[in-house]
Every structure is written in structure tokens, then in C-alpha cells.
């Protein structure tokens, strides 16, 4: 690929640039998100703690309703009623977002935290050309940038993301799904966001376009030291590009660790069942694991470990007491009573 000047490097450095690669960019502590419904309070995210590190791609997996998308929204403080963040701490680059004003949050969204969703058409204005999206985004946040400079920056970005510059004057509907996702990334990068939350970004894409998009995410991470939270049910996609993997079940974080460890030495019985249920084109066996039961209601979650009614290894204690989220290896942690004895200590 022709070398194109890094459009982000030319910009004034973002305030988080003093964070070195690998330092904690976003620290989440005991995050709890509830939804008030007629049936009762749904604990969509229940006391989740997670440190997201500068420059990493962290894959967040789990099945429908496990709370992964809610967690992603909570990180941008975009939970709307009937939902609300009912507890926990959100520290982004040292700033307490629970205390941030709405105005400050608007500034951060886009400028520091970018978003890519499954359906880009719902995020793009069908009546605005791509160039208008980009220049408006840039000039809204940076009022001193001239029209020409904004256009210049937009063109460089678009070219970097593999979209032909001529197409910058086209409208969203004239682009394919894969190209629209690239435009979403361009919008995130137009304002030097250093953290991108991508919620099911490839779910609507065909497999080759998906692979191209995942490759692009990897390149951008390497080029800009971007931090990416990849939220998806597509476990193959997570395996392809994630440094670390987090697994959620019924609102709880049940396992976290380096991708190789979570896939290679899976600890939590739910993660094990989930990963073994994934069809793998690369292996010869033709039996898929069959996980019993279905996820519980979050209005009345089971006592103890929320997975115990489906767990093949459930013990008495699992039915009554909730397991803590503990380290089981230098970089790997899980919430499961199986590992409570002989647990890893530093």
C-alpha cells in the first residue's frame, strides 16, 4: 500500500498521548447497569470490573442478552432510560466519567472515544455526503479548522481507509456495507479518538469483506496505537485480532485473559461450552458441543453462580454463593468456584 501521511499524527497531540502502550486507558470498577421493566429490574451488567489498556484490542464476547452491548454503551455513558448506571466507577485516562457533565461527555464522544455499530446506515445521515459528515465532525469539535483544512484532513483519512477520494462526495446509500463501516472508522479517527468501541461491526458483512475490515482494524491499531473494544458474538473474529478476550454471561464478566490463554486454556465452564460450540472450518472433527439449557432471566437471576443451572461441573457451593472474579494465571482471571482452591497468587 502506498505510504500516505498519517493524518492523525499531524494533529495536536491528544491529552492521553502521555499514556504509554499497555498502560491502563480505561478503568472500569464494579460497573452496574439496570433496566427498569414492568417485570422488574433487569440487571443487564452486574458489578463488572475491567482495565482496558492503551493500544490493545480487547474482544468482548457472549450471547444475546449477556450485557455486552450495554457495557459498551455504558462506557460512553450512553445508557438511556429505562436503563441507568446504578453503580461503579468509570475512569477514562484518569478522568472520572461518572462526574463528567453532559457537555463534557459530548466532547469526549468522537474526540476521544469513537463508535462503530453493526448498522452504519443508522449512524449516517442519508442526506449528507461523506465529506459533509467528516468536515462537520471535525469543525464541530475544532472550530478553528478552516473548510479547506478540514476537507484536506478528510481526504487523507478516507484514502488511508481504502476508499477512493473521488467517492468522498457520494452519499451513504451509494456505498456498500463494508465501505460504510470504513466511513464510520474515518469519523472516529477524524477527531483523533484513541479509543474505539466497535459493537458487532462485521455482523452485517460478508466473510471476505469482514476479513478485510478486521485486517484494517489491526493496521490502524498498529499505526495509531488505537485501543479497540470489539464487542461481538462472532468468536472467530475475536480470535483473529484480539490481544485479550473477555467473556460475559448473564450480566457478569466470567473470564478475562490473553486470547491465547482464553482459547487455549479456557477456565470457566461457560467459556468452554461457548468456545466449543463454535463451528471451526479448520479442524476435522464434525461434532459440535451441545450446551444444555438457555440463559436465565435477569429479573430473577439464579442465586450463587448464574451459570450453575447449566453447568456440567456445578457443586453445592455454586448454588448458593457467588464466586469472586479471581486470578487463576498471571494474566487470566475467572469467576468460578472450581478455581477457588489452589488459586493463583502473585
Amino acid at each position, binding site marked *: 500500500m502506498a505510504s500516505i501521511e498519517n493524518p492523525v499524527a499531524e494533529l495536536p497531540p491528544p491529552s492521553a498521548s502521555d499514556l504509554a502502550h499497555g498502560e491502563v486507558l480505561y478503568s472500569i470498577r464494579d460497573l452496574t447497569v439496570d433496566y427498569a421493566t414492568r417485570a422488574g429490574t433487569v440487571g443487564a451488567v452486574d458489578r463488572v470490573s475491567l482495565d482496558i489498556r492503551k493500544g490493545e484490542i480487547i474482544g468482548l464476547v457472549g450471547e444475546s442478552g449477556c450485557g455486552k452491548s450495554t457495557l459498551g454503551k455504558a462506557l460512553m455513558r450512553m445508557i438511556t432510560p429505562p436503563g441507568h448506571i446504578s453503580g461503579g466507577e468509570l475512569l477514562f485516562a484518569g478522568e472520572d466519567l461518572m462526574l463528567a457533565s453532559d457537555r463534557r461527555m459530548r466532547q469526549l464522544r468522537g474526540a476521544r472515544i469513537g463508535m462503530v455499530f453493526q448498522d452504519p446506515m443508522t449512524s449516517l445521515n442519508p442526506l449528507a455526503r461523506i465529506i459533509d459528515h467528516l468536515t462537520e465532525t471535525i469543525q464541530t469539535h475544532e472550530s478553528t479548522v478552516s473548510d479547506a483544512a478540514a476537507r484536506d484532513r478528510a481526504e487523507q483519512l478516507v484514502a488511508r481507509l481504502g476508499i477512493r477520494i473521488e467517492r468522498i462526495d457520494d452519499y451513504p446509500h451509494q456505498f456498500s456495507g463494508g465501505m460504510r463501516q470504513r466511513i464510520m472508522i474515518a469519523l472516529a479517527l477524524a477527531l483523533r479518538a484513541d479509543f474505539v468501541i466497535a459493537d458487532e461491526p462485521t455482523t452485517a458483512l460478508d466473510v471476505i469483506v469482514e476479513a478485510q475490515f478486521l485486517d484494517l482494524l489491526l493496521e490502524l491499531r498498529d499505526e495509531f496505537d488505537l485501543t479497540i473494544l470489539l464487542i461481538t458474538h462472532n*468468536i*472467530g473474529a475475536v*480470535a*483473529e485480532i484480539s490481544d485479550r478476550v473477555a467473556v460475559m454471561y448473564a450480566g457478569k464478566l466470567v473470564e478475562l485473559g490473553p486470547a491465547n490463554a482464553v482459547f487455549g486454556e479456557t477456565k470457566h465452564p461457560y467459556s468452554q461450552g461457548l*468456545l466449543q*460450540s*463454535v463451528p471451526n*472450518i*479448520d479442524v476435522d472433527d464434525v461434532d*459440535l458441543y451441545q450446551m444444555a439449557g438457555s440463559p436465565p432471566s435477569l429479573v430473577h437471576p439464579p442465586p450463587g453462580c448464574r451459570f450453575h443451572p447449566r453447568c456440567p461441573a456445578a457443586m453445592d457451593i455454586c448454588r448458593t454463593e457467588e464466586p469472586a472474579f479471581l486470578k487463576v494465571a498471571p494474566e487470566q482471571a475467572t469467576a468460578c468456584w472450581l478455581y477457588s482452591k489452589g488459586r493463583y497468587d502473585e
Partner: protein
Amino acid sequence: MSEQERNTPLVEVGGLTKWFPVQKGFIASLLSHGQIDNVRAVDDVNFTIQRGEVLGLAGESGSGKSTVGRLVLGLLEPTKGSVKIDGIDLNGLGREELRRMRKRMQVIFQDPLASLNPRMTIGEAISHPAQIHLPDLSSSERMDLVLETLEAVGMSPARFFYDKYPHQISGGQRQRIVIARALITRPELIVADEPIAMADVSVQSLLLELMVSLKEKFDLTYLFITHDLATTKYICDRIAIMYLGEIVEIGPLNEVFKNPQHPYTRALLAAVPVPDPRHRRKEPLPRGEIPNPINPPSGCRFHPRCPIAVEGICDVDQPRLKSAEDVEGHLASCHLRTGAHKDLDPTRTGQH
């Protein structure tokens, strides 16, 4: 079953072609002098499915795979070519004959919520096709048949689910209901169009397992349409890969997966995400995206994206499906890998 019946493929598709005319504005149609553009959704597709076999039909959006499914079911009329079910050409059938034929072939679509009437109970939804196709059954016989079928798809106890509405059960259970409704007329052929695409992975594996066991239990034949190559491995005997309306490769599943011949098949297989972080992609990805089927590229339709295309051949001559690697029934349409241009060394002539 006579000898002939056993040898006649259940599905025989020959030269199947479906073009959809493109709607144009009034001025544009004046300017083009009445010339009509067509979306060439399906172009000269040929395959057979034997009784008891599962043929996978895979490809990206816009490849024409779902259109083939609808043509096989007689839900669309082909522009050219024919579909024969058990030797009977659907084209020649009158309304009444086609209706009787439909009893023998059923369909399962992707979205069970869209396939089920929210105001019908599960029992009503499943017995509905039986009322149409099995009018001789008394209502108690029909009810027994519904309950038996519910049990067969794992909705047990069947009585408990009979009076429930679609919104009262989970997505995976809804898809089981759609499968039960397809089975109620005891069809021979089921066209399953992305039957598990909406489900979560753990539910996907249960549904795949169910489809495999039902196939044995009810002597079914499947046309399994999917964009997800990884799942085909668990159910299909043979697979056909479609690109821009054409089958570019077809053969026994293991053969095609282990020894893919067409560069598009190779790319598609290589792009499938593998749930193993140590895995590295074996083939480079093709450039760009699937082109517009209104004016498909000349010659081989894949040539503009193909890593090994040779100028003067691939952009000029349209390749035909030819036998590949001397494996029976493994065909691919690539000049460089089969047929006349085999002497060309694809690595030397590859252009990037």
C-alpha cells in the same frame, strides 16, 4: 421403491437462469430506447441432489443462492432452464399440480419471528399446512400429528407448547417450530435458507444437530443455503459455491474444503474466521467487493478480483465447470486450474 425411482435424483436443476428487470425512471427508459437492464441473479446453474443427500449452497450476499432456493421451490419462475423434482418439471405443472407438489417440498427461512404469525398459537401455526395439504385428516388426527411433530423437534412436552404464542418462547425454540411446520406434511425435500443464521452459537449447534437427526428420522433431503461455510461442514455431503449468479465450484464437501480449485473458493475458505488465535490466514484476500450483477465482468466473473487471472484469457473467455483433480463430481470453472489453460503456471503469470 422401483429401481428407476431410486436412480432419479430428487432435485435436478438444468440451465437454471433468473434475470430480474431493473426498474428505471421514465426519462431514463426513454433515453435507453426501451432497452431493459437485467440483474442476472442466477445464470445457467446446474446441479442434482440425490435422495437423502444434503447439498450446501454457499456464497456471499448477491451471489444468487437464495434465488436458486426459491426457483427450486417453484416460488419464482425461471427465465430459462428447468427444475425437476423427482423427474417432474415444475414448469409444466398447473396450479393444482404445483400445490400438490408443494406438499413434498418445504422451506425454512432465517427469521423465525417473521415466519410465524404472532396471533396464531404454535399448534395452529403447525397444523395450518396440514389443513391445506392433508385435508382428509380429522381434527383429532391432525392434532396428534402436530403433537408428534412437536416432540420430534424437541419441543417437549408438546401439549405445553401447543397453546403458546411465538413471543412466549425463545428464538431457538421458534426456529424449532418453523422446522416442525415444515415437517408436518412429511416432505421429501427441505430448502433451508440460512436456517441458523439468527441464532446464538450455542443454539446454532443445537439446531444443526436437530436438522441432522431429523434428516435420518424423516428420510429428508436438504438444500442448505448459507453464507457461513464453517457450519456446512457439520451437515452437508456436497457443496456448491456461488459467485455472481454462477456456480464456480461444486463437489463432495471434504474434497472442496481440502482441495479447493477455484481461486474464489480458496479466498472464501481462507477468509472464514477461525476460533483459534494461533491460526494464520493461508491465502491473501481478494481485492474489493462483489461487483454489480447488472453488468457482470466479461469472461470469468471473478477475474477483476482474482490473484491469478491472466489477461487475454480470464477477461475474455467464460470458463465452464469442468472436472477438477480427477475426483468424481468435483467440478470448478477456472481456466487456469481446469481445462485448456492448465499448462499455464498460475504463480508465474499471476498479476497483482
